[in-house]
């Protein structure tokens, strides 16, 4: 069905279900309880899950398949964001033209960057993309201020004159919408003590992510995807057979740049603002982390990694020392303070420390990311079952 094998179809169905039911899944704790702070089912965070999911899926098409490690992908996200906000400022607050423009502009920009960077490979490629991204960041900050708003960035304003839309007379700022459907509108459902929020923006972003995910499955399974994997495993051999691999890598680069642009456009569609820090190279590093953490080169990995990192970022940075004291109140006084003192550097503002440690641990011990971890655990149990079968069958022989 849909051109997918049965296994991929199952995966697709699981992802669809996860996206559709996320408001339930992410809100397992009743409102007002102690654990309510670990609920992640509010619109802002859920939107970020899917948007960074798109970003990571796109990055994975480049890094996971061809092995080219780009350290400048945030530049495409930023360029997409700027394109989208200008469409919203000049044309209409409907998100569709904004997103189309974001993808197109990011695609063109990545074509230029990719054409130049892909002349080199390995570490040179990483540094070239990094240099391009830093250059775009510096330019957005300084030279291009009329276009980017410099340090303050761009927001929707009350006096934006849009071609396809009349300016609101009451001086209010028009919101991003999808044919009149406000992105920020939500429907709240209360079941007992639980409260679930269904947000328009989240579901629109979610549907787009599902489309992006479907497209990435098709790319992975296509002859084109096989070609990209061949680039990763042995580019020299490919070149010796008389095949020019650069068009393929360039295509992969542009596709992943367009994904990044789409993510950037969606970000603008959700919060209608953009600033140059979105292009800073730590942002590029973040998407690398997501992809590696989830599992580079796997289908579901990047989505998992993006969700993991965004979830932990939100939750861990919320924990403070009084919450820790609450958790460990059952320990003797001295012990309690000691345990809290040890954990304290890793929570709250120290979230990046935790992130760095997790990331290093994954690269060192689990290069395949969470997906490989899951497979290893599955294999562990699988082998036990096989062993048990063997044990049963041996006496019968």
């Amino acid at each position, binding site marked *: 069905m849909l051109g997918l094998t049965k296994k991929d179809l199952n995966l697709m169905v699981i992802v669809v279900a996860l996206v559709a039911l996320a408001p339930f899944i992410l809100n397992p704790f009743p409102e007002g309880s102690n654990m309510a702070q670990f609920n992640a089912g509010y619109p802002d965070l859920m939107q970020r899950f899917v948007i960074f999911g798109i970003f990571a899926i796109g990055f994975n098409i480049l890094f996971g398949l061809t092995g080219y490690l780009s350290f400048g992908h945030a530049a495409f996200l930023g360029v997409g964001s700027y394109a989208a906000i200008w469409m919203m400022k000049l044309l209409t607050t409907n998100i569709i033209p904004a997103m189309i423009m974001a993808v197109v502009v990011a695609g063109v920009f990545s074509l230029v960057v990719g054409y130049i960077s892909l002349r080199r490979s390995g570490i040179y490629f990483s540094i070239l993309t990094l240099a391009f991204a830093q250059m775009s960041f510096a330019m957005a900050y300084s030279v291009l201020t009329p276009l980017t708003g410099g340090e303050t960035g761009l927001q929707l304003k009350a006096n934006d004159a849009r071609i396809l839309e009349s300016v609101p007379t009451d001086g209010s700022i028009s919101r991003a919408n999808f044919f009149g459907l406000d992105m920020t509108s939500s429907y709240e459902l209360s079941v007992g003590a639980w409260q679930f929020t269904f947000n328009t923006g989240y579901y629109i972003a979610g549907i787009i992510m599902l489309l992006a995910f479907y497209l990435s499955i098709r790319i992975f399974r296509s002859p084109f995807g096989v070609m990209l994997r061949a680039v990763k495993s042995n580019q020299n051999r490919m070149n010796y057979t008389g095949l020019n691999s650069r068009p393929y890598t360039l295509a992969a680069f542009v596709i992943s740049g367009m994904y990044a642009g789409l993510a950037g456009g969606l970000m603008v569609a959700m919060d209608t603002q953009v600033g140059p820090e979105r292009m800073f190279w730590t942002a590029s590093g973040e998407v690398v982390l997501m992809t590696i953490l989830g599992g580079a080169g796997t289908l579901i990995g990047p989505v998992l990694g993006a969700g993991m990192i965004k979830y932990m970022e939100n939750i861990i940075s919320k924990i403070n020392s009084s919450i820790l004291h609450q958790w460990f109140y059952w320990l003797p006084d001295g012990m309690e303070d000691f345990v809290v003192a040890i954990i304290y550097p890793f929570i709250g503002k120290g979230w990046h420390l935790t992130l*760095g440690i997790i990331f290093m641990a994954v690269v060192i011990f689990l290069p395949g990311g969470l997906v490989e971890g899951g497979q290893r655990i599955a294999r562990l149990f699988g082998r036990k079952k096989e062993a048990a079968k063997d044990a049963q069958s041996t006496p019968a022989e």
Partner: protein
Amino acid sequence: MDALILQILNGLDKGSAYALIALGLTLIFGTLGVVNFAHGALFMIGAFCSVTLSRILTLSYTVIDESQTDFLGNPLKVDVPYIHGWLGKETGDVIIDWAVPLSIIFAIPVMIGIGVLMERGLIKHFYKRPHADQILVTFGLAIVLQEIIKYFYGANPIPTPAPAAFTGSFDFGAMLGFDPNTIIYPYWRLVYFAFAAVIIGAVFAFLQFTTFGMVVRAGMADRETVGLLGINIDKRFTIMFGIAAAVAGLAGVMYTPINSPNYSMGMDFLVLSFVVVVVGGMGSLPGAVLAGFLLGILESFASMAIVLEYVPGLNQIIIYLVAIIILLTRPRGLMGRKGVMED
């Protein structure tokens, strides 16, 4: 003319920092073949070595000075550094004043220790893994080191002044026969440049004129053969990693009076230093130094008001532009050797 000289001088101190970091990066890359994204963090740790030392030196206890009173008439509380008690007030004050240069002595063993620990504990396991993995793990390490420093020292820049003897400026204009006050250059930047030159010279001399350096150079050319000759090349490369870390650290120590250290300074320099290494040619030590100074000076030329009038913002992007142009026209960099990272 005087404006040109001023810009060259201005470029020298930044160029020195680029050159020192790039030198360390190239040493690591040339010996171990590892791309070290944590090198900027080593630079930053070096800077915090001098912060730490000046804090240690100014550790104080409070005494109540009966001879002085505050505005309410109460006896004044005065902080007295412990060092006054040990070495006397005058010597103590001089030592506190010279905290930054003294940190060099403190930083060398610390940085070599950190470098050796890093190589033995982590990077050793990554020689056989792809370059992407090396980049990623050192990138993770850089985040961790940076956050540890942030936890202990806070996120704000910590001003660490140079010794009082070097706080003024030197008037080159008068010396070179131009009008006085046209070319003014802070003393400490001159010191930094001289220091960088000495360190660079020392590293080259060490590699060129000692037996150890000769073995290391041989190992850079052909590691396997040197190993087959019965020389423990791994041990020597580990020490070279320590030296590279120390070079980055010393660059950081002496940079503190120019720019107050904060936890993210390493990352800012790292990106530029990579560009420097690539421009200079991967694996070429003279190339790294040359490109470091060249790009530093270019950057300061690009920030001249007359240039910015025609091309606004050029100072922000010149280095990247040059790097892109060089990589496209001369893929090996200015002085790159054949066969290094060709594929």
